[in-house]
């Protein structure tokens, strides 16, 4: 057994060993799902403890935002509100998940520094916990779309089922992003604020609350934005539309790349995380 956990002194590395440990960590953490499920839910609860609505405060905030902006922009852009409001509500709900994953992926180890130093758990537990927590928040927010769909009589039919693979891709990406940005954000404390700004900018650049067809001359600008494709594979099915092959292709390629990069990165720096946190 060769030991090369020291990323600092540049000891040559035994990749098969590191990858075995890294992948082992990811598998073991999956087996300890009761830990990250419990902690994930606990974190959401903690934020809204002693308030009457609990996590539904999030939903209420977003609901008001979606209602107001949906109506307002449909007037400005001259869109049909029956199409635009459901479109915007899904945009906000899914962006809430994407933005949450982006923003918090770099905080997973700094936020849990105490547990990391007190107990030996597989370190990918914290990445699963991130995804689970965001999923719980998402589940609350999704009730907005249910209400909107009822009001406007939207029923996506069988096409709606296409949302499932897209949604899984989104979650998988969030997990692997945590394995990359988590260690990075722990080692370099400038990363979390940088990510916060980047997420903010991406929110405006991605067609969350505007439709791509309103910018026909900027089609390339939209098509090169990976977040557009990720949003499309989950939003379009729920509106009864089939995402394009390009949407699917881009998402699949990016997910594969993300997973591969994350596996190598996490395996390489995993053992350093307790020292950095």
């Amino acid at each position: 057994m060769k030991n090369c956990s020291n990323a600092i002194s540049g000891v040559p590395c035994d990749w098969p060993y590191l990858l075995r440990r890294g992948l082992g960590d990811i598998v073991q953490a999956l087996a300890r799902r009761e830990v990250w499920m419990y902690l994930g839910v606990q974190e959401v609860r903690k934020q809204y403890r002693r308030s009457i609505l609990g996590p539904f405060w999030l939903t209420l905030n977003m609901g008001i935002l979606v209602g107001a902006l949906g109506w307002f922009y449909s007037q400005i852009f001259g869109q049909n509100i029956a199409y635009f409001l459901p479109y915007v509500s899904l945009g906000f709900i899914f962006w809430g998940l994407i933005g949450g994953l982006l923003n918090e992926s770099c905080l997973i180890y700094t936020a849990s520094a105490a547990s990391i130093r007190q107990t030996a758990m597989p370190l990918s537990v914290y990445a699963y916990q991130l995804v689970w927590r965001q999923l719980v928040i998402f589940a609350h927010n999704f009730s907005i779309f249910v209400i909107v769909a009822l009001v406007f009589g939207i029923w996506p039919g069988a096409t709606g089922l296409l949302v499932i693979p897209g949604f899984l891709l989104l979650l998988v990406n969030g997990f692997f992003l945590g394995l990359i940005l988590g260690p990075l954000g722990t080692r370099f404390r400038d990363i979390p604020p940088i990510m916060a700004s980047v997420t903010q900018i991406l929110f405006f650049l991605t067609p969350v609350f505007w439709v791509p067809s309103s910018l026909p001359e900027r089609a390339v600008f939209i098509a090169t934005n990976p977040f557009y494709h990720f949003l499309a594979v989950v939003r379009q099915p729920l509106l009864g539309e089939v995402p394009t092959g390009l949407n699917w292709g881009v998402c699949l390629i990016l997910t594969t790349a993300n997973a591969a990069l994350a596996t190598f990165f996490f395996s390489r720096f995993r053992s350093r995380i307790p020292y950095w946190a």
Partner: protein
Amino acid sequence: MTSIRLHDVSVDLPILNAGSRSLRNNLLSAATGGKIRRGEKKIIVRALDGVSLELTQGTRVGLVGHNGAGKTTLLRVLAGIFEPTGGQVITVGKIAPIFDISFGMDPEISGWDNIILRGILLGLGIDEIRARQQEIAEVSELGEFLDMPLRTYSGGMTTRLAFAVSTSIRADILLIDEGIGAGDAAFFQKAKKLLRTFVEDAGILVLASHSDDLLREWCETAIWLDQGRVRGHGPLEEILRAYHTALAETSDCTYSL
């Protein structure tokens, strides 16, 4: 068979200050070949230096040494929290680290929920904790207080609860970092009994402490750590004597200076 084997284990701790945590400084240093970081060399502390140990079933060992001698780092290596930067660690058996008694407690949730939270963080399964919740509650002697949020507890009550959860874990290797004895006198007697069965069930106990009395009560052998190295390993009294003699000598030197 429970055992711990350390072979030539070293741990280098990076000291990350604001400068080295900054991405900008790191990028700049990469772009300029590192010249810009004049006078701001990366600081690395060697917390453990070539430690080799072999502990077998039935060992009750105390860790002695100055502050910063490497006791806590060694416990973290044994617990599997720190992967050493050099050498090998092989442990056989389920490990229970008890380092910080207040770890895994949330002031806003009830005593019952804290039992679950702390239990989960200490590595118990959720069904396992639910099954033992009643038993833990009885040990803590908190009665109806368990329905109240932890923030309403006194310090001693919090400790009792934490202690009750910790000692409900059955482990082969028990790692304890000093300062575990707390709570009022009546509870302490009971705690001792609990700790006694807890320790007897475990195959190996490693206890880091500055209190000779505590060490005498629980340990038979001791390891003396000094600047990350093992300076002595043997029967408790022998090591304590050597350690105190050395302490006296160093303080004599300080006076003569």
